[in-house]
């Protein structure tokens, strides 16, 4: 695939890794924000090419993982309602609520459908006028424009039977929350490239200045990630704290204007609870008053939800970068993708899932000498 395959070139990757090795003189901790970046790192083994003094800390960039358990339970209750067609992206199917998951709801008779795009859900609403079609709108800023368009079209066409369960979270407040935490050890950030393709990176210079951290807008393929790391390391070694764009073929400073415009119409900023982290002020989006009628949380009053977290699950610590998935005692034992204790083990962007699916349950040492 053009503009994908070239950025996986092994020889160039090793050259970039060499550069990084030659630049590093001290230990550093760099956080990659996006779960997609975490997956790519583990999948290709990028961390194995880096010097041991350079630690990659996995960030909370998994919107499914940070969706509050209470909202997951609410989604499951709605999906179980008769006359509801519940639509979500594929990896939501096995995200555990307090009692069950969407897969169980489906096997118990709930009409749960996997969709590739929110537009598919709008289509279902058009084709099933007597049913209530609910779309689980989970995501960062990357996914928000798609969800916004779905709601916007529904309003335009007067689709009364369409609604969205919104769980949108924003990256810059998360970076701030991480930097403000007293336990924080992160010294630089690889910003999420596709989030920035929508939002631009004009929000980052104040953060870089306030917290004295380099922030490098980074893509997802091996060469993009290594280049992002290389630039971050170069800044760290030189004592700089600036914003750089290492994904310039896709990201511009202003970002996507048409998308931002519709986003500001359809959504408004709100405080959000991040599972495992707590409430981060002004860190999420909810439907604006003009679109509030499409809010599934208001449309479906579901009661009798008893939310309780698994005492063994340490997803919160993983999401904050405090531990690696393999540090959790339940990893690979009580918790695996078939019987997950938390969302990080099943989401396509969860760090635990990345570690499990790419076999990081053997030690890095064993792996390096395999």
């Amino acid at each position, binding site marked *: *695939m*053009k*503009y*994908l395959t*070239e950025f996986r*070139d*092994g*020889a*160039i990757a*090793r*050259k*970039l890794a*060499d*550069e*990084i*090795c*030659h630049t590093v*003189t001290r230990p550093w901790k760099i956080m990659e924000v*996006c*779960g*997609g*970046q975490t997956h790519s790192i583990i999948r290709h*083994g990028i961390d*194995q*090419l880096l*010097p*041991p*003094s350079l630690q990659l800390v996995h960030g909370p*960039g998994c*919107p499914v993982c940070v969706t509050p358990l209470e909202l997951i339970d609410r989604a499951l209750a709605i999906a179980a309602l008769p006359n509801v067609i519940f639509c979500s*992206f594929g*990896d939501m199917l096995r995200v555990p609520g307090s009692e069950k998951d969407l897969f169980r709801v489906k096997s118990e008779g709930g009409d749960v459908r996997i969709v*590739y*795009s*929110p*537009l598919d859900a709008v289509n279902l609403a058009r084709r099933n006028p007597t049913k209530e079609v609910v779309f689980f709108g989970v995501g*960062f800023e*990357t*996914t928000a*424009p*798609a969800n916004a*368009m779905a709601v916007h*079209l529904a309003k*335009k*066409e007067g689709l009364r039977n369409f609604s969205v369960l919104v769980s949108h979270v924003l990256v810059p407040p998360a970076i701030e929350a991480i930097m403000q935490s007293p336990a924080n050890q992160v010294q630089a950030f690889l910003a999420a490239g*596709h989030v920035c*393709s929508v939002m631009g990176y004009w929000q980052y210079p104040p953060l870089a200045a306030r917290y004295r951290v380099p922030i490098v807008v980074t893509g997802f393929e091996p060469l993009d990630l290594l*280049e992002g790391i290389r630039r971050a390391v170069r800044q760290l070694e030189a004592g700089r704290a600036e914003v750089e764009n290492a994904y*310039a*073929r*896709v*990201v511009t400073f202003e970002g*996507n204007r*048409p*998308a931002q415009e*519709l986003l500001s119409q359809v959504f408004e900023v709100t405080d959000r609870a991040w599972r495992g982290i707590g409430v981060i002020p002004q860190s999420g989006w909810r439907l604006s008053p003009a679109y509030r009628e499409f809010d599934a949380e208001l449309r479906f009053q579901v009661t009798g939800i008893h939310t309780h977290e698994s005492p063994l699950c340490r997803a919160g610590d993983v999401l904050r970068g405090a531990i690696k998935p393999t540090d959790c005692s339940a990893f690979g034992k009580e918790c695996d993708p078939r019987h997950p204790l938390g969302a990080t083990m099943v989401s*396509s*962007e969860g760090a635990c899932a990345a570690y499990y699916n790419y076999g990081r349950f053997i030690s890095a040492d064993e792996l*390096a*000498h395999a």
Partner: protein
Amino acid sequence: MCLAVPGRVEEIYEGFGSRMAKVNFGGVVKEVCLAYVPEITVGEYTIVHVGFAISRIDEAEAKLTLDTFRELGMLDEEFATEEQHFERAAASPPAECDSSSCQTEK
């Protein structure tokens, strides 16, 4: 979900009350909504996420980035000794880097 993939715009038309396109991802063609990249034309490349084009790929930037990557280490190459050239050619691609701060031994 941040999974977004680059594809080539093959055909543009109206649909769903919006500008739509057939986008070719390395041989796989899918329908994509172009509402957010109104300026894109047939033959150009775009990044697509959950059925929506969210950015136009700047091909000049892409080329610049790849050229920069390819030039990396070329200065080293020029000044390397004959012995180093031979060593590099003979060795199977190493996963480990050769700096003393690296974790794995050769």
